[in-house]
């Protein structure tokens, strides 16, 4: 499945930009593909065992993947996956 992964500007410099085209059947597979292509970005997306962090939320289209199977959530062609890390500035 062809999926677009969107990064916040702060992570975009670790990849080729804010929108990365990727492939996979699940959110986890897409994240693994992107992590393999951008080793500098990899540790910001998931932990050493490949699992999601509690402080980085992934939205599949506009739904939090945690309520949809997490990294096992199935993706469809054209889906958008958005990475939203915790920020605390004020």
């Amino acid at each position: 499945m062809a999926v677009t992964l969107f990064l916040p500007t702060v992570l975009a410099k670790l990849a080729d930009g804010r929108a990365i085209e990727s492939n996979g059947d699940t959110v986890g597979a897409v994240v693994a593909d992107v992590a393999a292509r951008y080793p500098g970005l990899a540790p910001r997306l998931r932990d050493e065992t490949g699992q999601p962090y509690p402080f980085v939320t992934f939205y599949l289209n506009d739904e939090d993947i945690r309520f949809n199977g997490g990294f096992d959530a199935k993706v469809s062609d054209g889906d958008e996956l958005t990475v939203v890390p915790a920020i605390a500035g004020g």
Partner: protein
Amino acid sequence: MATATAPLATQLEELSSDEILRYSRHLILPEVALEGQQRLKASRVLLIGAGGLGSPLALYLAAAGVGTIGLVDFDVVDVTNLQRQIVHGTKDVGRPKLESARDRLKDMNPHVHVEGYETRLTSENALEIVRDYDIVIDGTDNFATRYLTNDACVILGKPNVYGSIYRFEGQSSVFATENGPCYRCLYPEPPPPGLVPSCAEGGVLGVLPGLVGTIQATEGIKLLLGIGEPLIGRLLLIDALSMQFRTMRLRKNPECPACGTREIRELIDYDQFCGIGGDPLQDPHGIPEITPSELATKQQRRDDFDLIDVREPHEWAIARIPGARLVPLGAFTESLSSFDSARDIVVTCKMGGRSAKAVRQLQAAGFKRVWNLAGGILRWSDDVDPTVPKY
């Protein structure tokens, strides 16, 4: 999308004829009208932080006629705050932020009562302070206080209007309403210290807290009046560079220890929860340090050593220590082979946090004679050479 809830401000307070004139543009809005303005006057809103987000929040809530505004802040106004903290002025540099904000708000609207709490919000005082307010607005600048604010709001059943910012991006939502999600539903745990740089390290566009703070003020007023569709169950993402606003669905997590299972019945140690203490910034244990004065002596003696600056090139352009070589932290691993392990190495950055990470990397790579410059270039400017500009 959440629909309008009952007004949180349940009391009404009479308006004087001066106030009726002042609030004229509200009174002719059917959604506010006389009754809504009387609700605002009777309402109490607590702002955590009188900084970037707190500035527009306090100004607009005061202008709107929110009767009592509580402010929690223990900081003093610094000249680097003025690029975005518009409630304070140049004449206020060095004054407590509470005093400065109180004066400005009184000038903005003398009908508003400002209650100041010149303290850090802590597990010991949070419930007592929050209890007396209708709504809490989170404009703090660190994870520990955000989790503390969230848990206090959930325990006391007070809505928490959330906003946070970094560089060009912001987030906002409304947490801890009766059936809505809370901050822990969005982020169950904070990132480890040091992973997400603060605005002091990473920077923030000065206008951004204005964008996000006014969204929080809007949500606060909507909740007090019971109008519109509040940001309950939605996370608003703001990107100032592309000027895009997106809303994501936010669900209440039934497993959430705060608002789901409610196993958090009292406030915890939030510094410990956020891992503060294991942070090289906070706990330099195991990292050899050298002070700026010691470094200056070393330079005067013409000792044989390398001074490595791990900041970014745009920071290097602002200020640098003579004799330093720039190796940004992002490229540090690839540059390890360019260092000579036989020579002494001193590593520096803006404040000493990033250079501590670099020292750890050097130690892990087998370098024995490495030191972190304590306090970075800011302390160098204070202690050794004031002609090096601070930023």
